[in-house]
């Protein structure tokens, strides 16, 4: 079972949090800090598995993470999950985000925390993997977005603002999350990198 999904940036700022097991607020923050501490001091060329955040539950638990340009995606799972399976699930999650946000970047996560949650709802439900097929997830999310589009006006504003910012010609424009897995070619990413 997946116990928690955490996304934070290179400075440890939480960008997304979803716990599937209840922890008090204070504890959640501590877990994020501890996880960041554990993950951030690891090189990029070491393995993607970590044991032993003492907070989230001892030896039965593993942290499985991937580091994309500015963000860490960390899944905290118990021993009933396959390490490599989860590692690829993270990849699927990020690729899905990429599809839904059209070249996802850290800003997308910041401004659309709720949408990220909805996307995740289609993939993981109550700590269980519900769907791993990216197209299926995207289809579900898009079906929901149709509802939103039917409502015009204010709610669309921030999204528009952000996409305006994204297409501005800033040389240091934050890169979209680099799905840099050697095995995976994501063609639609290459043009921005």
């Amino acid at each position, binding site marked *: 079972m997946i116990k928690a999904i955490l996304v934070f940036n290179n400075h440890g700022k939480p960008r997304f949090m979803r716990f599937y097991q209840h922890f008090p607020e204070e504890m959640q923050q501590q877990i994020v800090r501890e996880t960041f501490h554990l993950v951030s001091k690891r090189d990029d060329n070491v393995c993607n598995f970590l044991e032993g955040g*003492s907070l989230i539950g001892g030896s039965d638990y593993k942290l499985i993470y991937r580091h994309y340009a500015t963000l860490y995606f960390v899944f905290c799972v118990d021993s009933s999950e396959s*390490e490599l399976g989860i590692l690829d699930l993270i990849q699927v999650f990020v690729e899905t985000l990429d599809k839904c946000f059209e070249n996802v970047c850290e800003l997308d996560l910041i401004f659309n925390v709720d949408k990220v949650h909805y996307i995740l709802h289609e993939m993981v439900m109550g700590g269980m993997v*519900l*769907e*791993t097929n990216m197209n299926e997830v995207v289809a579900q999310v898009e079906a929901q977005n149709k509802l939103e589009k039917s409502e015009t006006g204010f709610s669309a504003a921030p999204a528009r603002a952000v996409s305006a910012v994204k297409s501005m010609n800033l040389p240091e424009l934050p890169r979209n999350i680099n799905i840099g897995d050697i095995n995976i070619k994501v063609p639609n990413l290459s043009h921005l990198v």
Partner: protein
Amino acid sequence: MSEIVERTLSALPGLLLQDPAPGPSSKLGSLIRSITALTSRQEEEKLIQQELANLKIAVSSPNTTLRQMKECMVRLIYCEMLGYEASFGYIHAIKLAQQGNLLEKRVGYLAVSLFLHENHELLLLLVNTVLKDLQSTNLVEVCMALTTVSQIFPREMIPAALPLIEDKLQHSKEIVRRKAVLALYKFYLIAPTQVQHIHEKFRKALCDRDVGVMAASLHIYLQVIKDNPSVYKDLTGSFVTILKQVVGGKLPVDFNYHSVPAPWLQIQLLRILRLLGKDDPGTSQLIYDVLDESLRRAEINHNITYAILFECVQTIYTIHPKSDLFEKAAKCIGKFVLSPKINLKYLGLKALTYVIQQDPSLALQHQMTIIECLDHPDPIIKRETLELLYRITNEQNVTVIVEKMLEYLKQSKDEYTVVALVGKIADLAEKYPFYIMNNILRANLLYSPNNQWFVETMNVVFSIGGDVVHPDIPNNFLRLLAEGFGDEREDGQLRLYAVQSYLALLEMENVHYPQRFLQVISWVLGEYSYLAKQIPIESVISKLHNVLLQNPVTSETSAWIMAAITKLVAITPHSSLVDQLIQEFSTCLDTGMRQQACELKALREERPLMQRLFPLNSCCEDLMVDASLSFMDGFVAEALSNGAAPYKPHHQRQEEKLSREKALNLEPYGLCFSPSLPSISLADGHSPSAVSALSEISGNSGETGQKEENRLKMEGVKKLWGKEGYLLKKESKVSKGECVSPPLESGISMGEEEEPAVTPAEPKVELISEEEREKKQLASTLFVGLGSNAISLMGRPSQTTQKFKRKTKFGKKESAQLLYSPGEQNDLALTLPNGASSVASRLLPSQSAEEKSEDGKVSSLFANTDLETFPSSTILSVPSLIPALAQHSHSAVTELARCGTLTLYSSKVWKDDCLLLALLIVNPTSSAIKNIYLQMEDTEILKVSESLCCQLSLLEANGVHQCWGSVHPVHPCKKELISGCVTYLAEVPSQLEFSVHFVLSDFIRPLMISTEEFGKMWSALSHDVKESVQISIPHLSLSEVFMTVQKTLNFHVVEVIGDEGIGACQLMPSVPSLLHCHLQEDMLLVWIRSSSSTLSNCLLHLCQKALQEH
């Protein structure tokens, strides 16, 4: 990155202004923008508090529209994510979920599932909304409700939702069915009994036409089968069929991930099959095929394929074994372990750890990789490797493995790792202390290095593990120490060593030890200081006193220390220091300490009583505790007759006190009892502080007869003291039973059970780099004693050495013959390089290579720089070789020369390809020696390698320096002597001369050739000698004769036919000589051929000697 975000955000307001309708949700944008602009945590906190205050007003205002509310909720979610509590909004989130339109509802549900937890009281308010949405005709609403249910739902309301969700299993849309299955799974997790009745429906879900629904149902099956596998055995066939179809590519291409069909589904199915097939040969039979196919199909080089392979391997090793699958799985593990990808390597190690119990030989195959992983830059890999080593620890490799663990322990910082590792080390150290017993028979050395090993290892554990170590660890350690291992003398030495090492530790200044360690130290010192006869007890007391004064000690630790001092005072009652100490602490603020100081004072006045209270070395004796305190009867009677109130138990007093408080008390104040006496049972004396508390009770309850009462009180105290708290009676009895089982026998039988490596008869002569070699040596020490068909990289015949080991334990020369059964000739030839001295005398002191090597490791562990914090004690035993050398057969480390300040030891190491001479320079004094210069001179016959001439700028006090190098013969010769000298600077420049004897057999090694090769060489060699030798023992067969000769002359028996036999040996580096023998009654016709007449003659002489001596 943050700068970039900042810049982007600073550009935002302009953009937003251009926006025709800057709606309320831009508030989130501005919030985020202002947060990002902040520099300090304080500012952020201030801002968010402000924001929360605004939000609070907004959400509670009746004018806020639902749309605005939705926007507020998103901001609240954001604030909560940053760690600020926004509980005022929870109720509004529920409202939003209830009242909003689809989009608002969605935000409401999301907020609720993020804010609340299962037991939150507000959650009940959500139930109605969920139930309503579950019945909605709108697909999206139903899905939202199901998602929420699986996320968060109050347990007591499950019955209300259950029928609705069950209905959803028949829903026409597969997404609803899928979510319904997972919602039911959630119910199963939190209230398994409530969903018992719908197991039939789960089966239907398993057979659902939609693959997604079937996959979702597997979550449930994995769980229920884990809980109770036997009920679901009938489903094995279905799971196998499903997996076969998936593997066979029968699913729509949609389900492919990187052209692997539904990998997560495969993983799930493999896990289920694993549970079903475990310990069940029948079920396993059904699974074999599909496993085989999975292994075959998983060939694409992608992560996810490896994920499937890994599951396959685990399944194969969990279900009933099948040999050909084992082979494939082993190959797979090999792929993982050898993979350059670090994730796969990690999993490979994990898999190895998993299978190691079933198949230890697998670890041997990969021993070199494992060794490399030990030095891997990734600490996670390292830790996994240590975990693996921990699983393969046996009594032969325990020291090396513990050494590796200690190394890692010293590097690790985080608490989690330290706790786990410390636990493992302590476990190993305590698991193999019987190991100490192996040395008893040869321990005419006073201080066996293995005592050191045990104590020093635990020292590191305590000092690094600090106060995070599990309390069982110090307790077990003290128990082992107190109960001993059945041999009085050895136990005494262990304790003595502990005392000495602790005194040395306390000697150091400005070092602070963890509390638990101080407690251990003080207990040991209190209990066993008397063993160290040369150390005055008073100095021990003063050291403990210093600890009390200088270190920050908790009151618990100070109680331990005081207890130790009290015990020591019982041995030496007259000491001015004690007076001073009593003086000091009887006025101290800590009541516990004051109490103990007073007790000590009183006891000192009653010397015979004190000695009766604290007898020497009696902590393990059972104590009778008079729980009824009958010895107090007289005193109580007297007190009662004097008008004292009868004793009332604690609870009674409490009740009375309560009843008094309720009503107005018109009575005059009666006897006053201490209001909250800690309730302490006599049987439960867990720490000395409890004792003091007890004493306090008795001190408070008594009124008269202070002195007499004091004495009576001490009687009670004594019983607890003697037990020393943690040495509970029951516990000690049980463990005694375990420990006392004759350790010697157990040590031996261990050796027999794990018949270790039989080496291939001819170790490959390879040119390998030094580094490689070191690694291999490490490997062979680590993997010693594993598996029956083990592959020993160093080609070391451990089987024979094992037997010698046992032999040496018995120490009977006569029985040596029993060992030489014909089947072992090859091994013998390898292990028995021999000298002019008789075999028995050589074998006994030299011991087996392995046993010796253990010592070597210990000494290298503690004598080298690794452990500078713990200087070995002032007593020096004969030093041991470093493991790299000690693993070869070698002679005993013997003293070569000695003068006042420096001792030189030597040992010959008979390696397969050369003779190494190891010289150990020992500084037994307590001051450092400088400028040591060791020199050896070649002779015409022997050449010494340069590494034996060494220079050492400094050798610390009690330090050992080892140097070694090879010695090569240039010409054959019976005997030769190499001399050398050591110059050094102690207080004055001095010189120590020495010489080392070598005999021809030191340089003779067996030559592994076949009969054909023998034939060719025979004619090629020119110098031969031929002679008949009388055999002293009549009626021996030729093989027996050969064995006799082999004890002196290390040669390879090529072939024996009837009473004729041939053998071959070589003088290093490679001068072959051949041997032809013919047995005629009691005469042996020996015919030796070699390339030099001297060699032939010398060899013949050795043969004669061997046969005559017999």
